[in-house]
């Protein structure tokens, strides 16, 4: 609410020579990368929201034929959830300054994320083999586009993960990579939430 407070300031009043005005101090927790990541997550959220709105509008048109659900998606959801938990655990280990658990945590979460990506591709294959092609119905098109877009965001995260893990494995100080690991974990939690949203949408419609 300090934002609201500050836009009610009257800057034309004489405010003296002390530059340290209240309302300008920014706490340690707001590293610029954190702000940027939050904004970025908001942008990604808008992208998915727009797809979902389009999904609902397109669903109303008469040629929509709902797609069956692949059981594999439940397994994948579980994988992504485990991944998020490990990330959180790694983040805790970083806070305690533990070198080895951080290594294991990072490697494990990355491997499981790759397993998730593989699982999603298998779900695509399963659907394709069952005759639910991308272009045969708008419901299918949305299934492939939404899962694909989510997968691309996961891959983007993995790129950052690779850089962080590389640093961890090459013996960097835990302190030096604390921020990257925290940001990775936030991103993974966010993508888990997005996936749960998509999965719920695909399951219930």
């Amino acid at each position, binding site marked *: 609410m300090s*934002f609201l407070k*500050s*836009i*009610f*300031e*009257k*800057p*034309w*009043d*004489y*405010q*003296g*020579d002390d*530059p*340290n*005005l209240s*309302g*300008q*101090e*920014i*706490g*340690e927790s*707001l590293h*610029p990368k954190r*702000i*940027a990541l939050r*904004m*970025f997550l*908001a*942008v990604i959220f*808008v*992208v998915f929201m*727009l*797809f979902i709105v*389009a999904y609902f*509008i*397109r669903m109303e*048109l*008469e*040629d929509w034929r709902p797609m069956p659900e692949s059981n594999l998606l439940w397994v994948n959801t579980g994988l992504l959830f485990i991944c998020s938990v490990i990330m959180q655990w790694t983040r805790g280990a970083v806070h305690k300054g533990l070198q080895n658990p951080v290594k294991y945590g990072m490697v494990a979460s990355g491997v499981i994320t790759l397993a998730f990506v593989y699982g999603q591709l298998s779900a695509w294959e399963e659907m394709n083999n069952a005759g639910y092609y*991308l*272009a045969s119905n*708008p419901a299918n*098109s949305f299934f492939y*586009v939404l899962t694909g*877009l989510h997968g691309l965001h996961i891959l983007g995260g993995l790129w950052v993960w690779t850089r962080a893990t590389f640093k961890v494995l090459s013996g960097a100080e835990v302190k030096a990579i604390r921020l990257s690991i925290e940001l990775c974990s936030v991103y993974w939690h966010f993508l888990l939430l997005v996936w749960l949203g998509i999965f719920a949408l695909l399951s219930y419609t």
Partner: protein
Amino acid sequence: MSYIPIADQTDEMHDPHTFIAKYVWSQDHKVIAIQYGTVAVAVGLVALVLSALMRLQLGFPDSFAFIDPAEYYQYVTMHGMIMVVYLLTALFLGGFGNYLIPLQIGARDMVFPFLNMLSFWFYLVSVIILMASFFIPGGPTGAGWTLYPPQAITAGTPGADGGIMLMLASLAVFIIAFTMGGLNYVTTVLQARTHGMTLMRMPLSVWGIFVATILGLFAFPALFVSAVMMTFDNMLGTSFFMPAMVSLGETLDHTGGGPVLFQHLFWFFGHPEVYIVALPAFGLVSDVLSCHARKNIFGYRMMVWAIVAIGGLSFIVWAHHMYVSGMNPYFGFFFAFTTLIIAVPTAIKVYNWVLTLWEGNIRLTVPMLFACGFIFTFVHGGLTGIFLGNVTVDLPLSDTYFVIAHFHMVMGVSPVMVLFAALYHWFPKMSGKMFNVTLGKIHFWATFFGTYAIYLPMHYLGFLGVPRRYYSMGTTDFIPESANTLNANITMAAIWVAVFQLVFIFNMIWSVWRGKKSDPNPWEATTLEWQTPDNPPCHGNWGAELPTVYRWAYEYSVPGVVDDFVPQNIPAKDVKTVDGSPYIGHED
């Protein structure tokens, strides 16, 4: 306090030494700004030539054999898209955003310089992809800048073979570039302000750019999403937007998609886009007006709130572009209502600009002329917007030249007036040289009267019912011969304006090369960028120490003070007063 180290990145003090690091792969926000600006102006010139070609066809149909209908539509499309996205958005945010944000808030650079550099190079790639579409078989897309499916990707539309794909790809790359830049601008404004620079001490330029960037970050995804779905429809045969249809006697594979869905997505981007361009213009013009009127901006707080309010409202008015697409009347009522509400904060801004001029000590410099020109053209375009915001008035006028006139007054000429005002205003800081004032004034009067000569008669053509989008009017009962004469005159005015832009280009290039050296603060302005130790500012902007800010950006003509301006970074004890008494700012 941790924000000062963010503003004061000491590694910015180390100058890059090689030519390439300094001017090509530069991470310095000032160089990136100039790179952005140069590319935007260059691509804008292409769009200007396209508009001249369009006008030649419209003014003198049947005289130019080399313009066939397909090419005409390609000119229309490319002119629109280049001007709106690749010129205005890129120049206001990539150009002025990059240049002014760190300088006006007192930072050494953007918080993520590398990302900033990437943003420019992605932008350049998007421009190259777009320009490449001129050279492929079939040429660029001719679907109109709104790219409505199904016709945008159906055989028979110019550029349906490849042009449309390059357009969508280019837009996607542009959006990625914008997102990288935008995250940077927002974070920099929030986190890298110097000592004493509270949000409400920021110049309005920064406020306009800041809010416009947030709009862009949330509006461009809609364009991205629609571009992705249209690409799928075109390349992979999906039916997101494509209805079942027969094209050239053949039944297409698509089934029941929703073209109106595309329109909603497009305009959910398209309307905020208007304000992505307008808000930085509002901000920049406020600073220019206040400085050259030697008077504080009238109603600073209201100006900030109006920028924020317009930004918020701009997300709930999009369907006023779709009255003619057919919609539930309650929808139309809602969108007409929200559209007219936007007139309130906008009118507050206009009144405040005029009241800033009221009893000011006006200096009619070149930037000031353009800023005043903006007030005229903006009021003009804004008033016709109130006509078109009403459903019942819009329906008969929507497909006529009235819309062309409204749109170009409010979103073409007005922001361009501000761009020129800002370019002339900050040119001495960017280059360290002064431009030629006489040429600048010639440029202003030719542009101002010329654009009026183009767009004022178009309102009349619109009332007559002359349709827009037509390649050639042919003969009809309701268009009198005099309308054709008027059209020819509009074309002459358009050519005139286009030619006089060369005066501007020449002035800029000549002045950088041979211009007189400029004072560090030629306009006697208060904001931080004019107080840099070097002119133009060197890498790292501020020398050894960051400036400290003691007041807002509009301390002009304070009674009892020797100079008629008090820079933001001069402590009160150093301000000279006429009678030697301590300086206490304006008295209420």
